[in-house]
């Protein structure tokens, strides 16, 4: 493996990430590895390794990191975050990284679908007449499933 030149990495990456909501504590990490040891995903997919992800952030390996598919494999169980002695909110950091990847157009295909659904109907699952009929049968109140304002709200 060719050595990576530290000077070619982006030392500002960690500072930028720390300015994002949820990323504030990132620089506190002292690489103890509790996050990785407790991560359930890491047990199945060792490539997803919180300690190493943080290390990549601190060293400024933005370009390589944001492309990684494994960023999307976190199950957001918050175990890492709750057991971190240095109070790094790593689950939140994952969200920040994903947001950053999205901004660079690096989100996995298909993720935009969720947003489109919300744009259109304000819900992940459409509630139409069929659904309301079923609800009625069960004695449950009707739900008016149209939220016109979401499209406006989510306008860039």
């Amino acid at each position, binding site marked *: 493996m060719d050595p990576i030149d530290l000077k070619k990495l982006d030392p500002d990456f960690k500072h930028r990430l720390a300015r*994002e*909501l*949820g990323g504030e504590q990132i620089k506190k990490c002292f690489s103890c590895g509790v996050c990785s040891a407790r991560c*359930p*995903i890491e047990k*199945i*997919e060792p490539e997803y390794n919180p300690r190493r992800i943080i290390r990549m952030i601190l060293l400024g390996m933005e370009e390589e990191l944001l492309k990684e598919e494994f960023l*999307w*494999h*976190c*199950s*957001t*169980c*918050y*175990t890492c*975050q*709750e057991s971190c002695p240095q109070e790094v*909110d790593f*689950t*939140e950091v994952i*969200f*920040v990284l*994903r*947001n950053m990847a*999205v901004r660079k157009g690096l*989100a*996995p295909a*298909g*993720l*935009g679908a*969720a*947003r489109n659904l*919300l744009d259109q109907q*304000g*819900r*992940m*699952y*459409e*509630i139409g007449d069929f*659904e309301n009929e*079923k*609800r009625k049968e*069960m*004695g*449950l*109140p009707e*739900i*008016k499933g149209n*939220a016109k*304002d*979401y499209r*406006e*709200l*989510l*306008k860039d």
Partner: protein
Amino acid sequence: MKYAFFLGCTVPVRNLNYELSARWVARELGLELVDLEDFQCCGFPLKSLNLLDSLVVAARNLALAEQAGLPVCTLCSACGGFLSEANSHLQHNHDLKSQVNDRLKVSGLEYKGTIQVKHFIRILYEEIGIERIRERITRPLYGFSFAPHYGCHYIKPARTAGGIDPVEDPKSLTELIEVTGAKALRYETLLDCCGGSVLGIKEDLANTLAGNKLSEVNRLGGNGLVLICPFCNVMFENQQKKIEKKLEQKLKVPVLYYSQLLGLALGTDPDTLGFKLNRIKDKEFLTGFERRD
């Protein structure tokens, strides 16, 4: 006790058994749940894409509840967790709040930060309380045993979840199961995640996660896995067939909602509680239970 009832996206379409049983239990215990017409998605699905967008959506729902002057009760742990998280961010971060309120103007709403968000189970545990529930138990579920599944977003992140349970040793659901007369099982994978969040990205990964827990619960025996979140239900109930295939193992772990369990103990019948909609039922439990009367 009056709450704005936040159903979220999944429950009113896919988990009517949860909704039915929760409404019934609430009525029975004097908890008034008010349906607000304009409640929509909590915003959590947007968090990975754009945190600010997701907070705007959450704030919209919170502002609606504020208008009604009611605290929010959620059935879904992800909704409850995310609305609480948004509430906390916006209450503590003034700049963020004004940014979000700017965006909310198109809906004619303003987020103020005056109300609380609580999960349905937390309301049972904290507001109604174990003792009052105990007094109302008419058909104790003696002899049956269940594995509680707390799920992640019900108790974590602790900072915004309100400290209902110590994250390493949660107790509320266990106690709530035990007050029905049933036994709550202790097991190694108790704190494990269902994997629901990864389902859309990498199904196999999600199934492996859920499979670990289902295998252990299957080994434990007992009468099923007790859930409090529709997200977890997707993994443990809907995916169970696929997981069986993956593990090459019959699991047949019955899955039910806590409100269904409590409903039975409070004296109503399985139909009222939507048991018909449960895909994997413990027939022995349901028949055994009926035979007692």
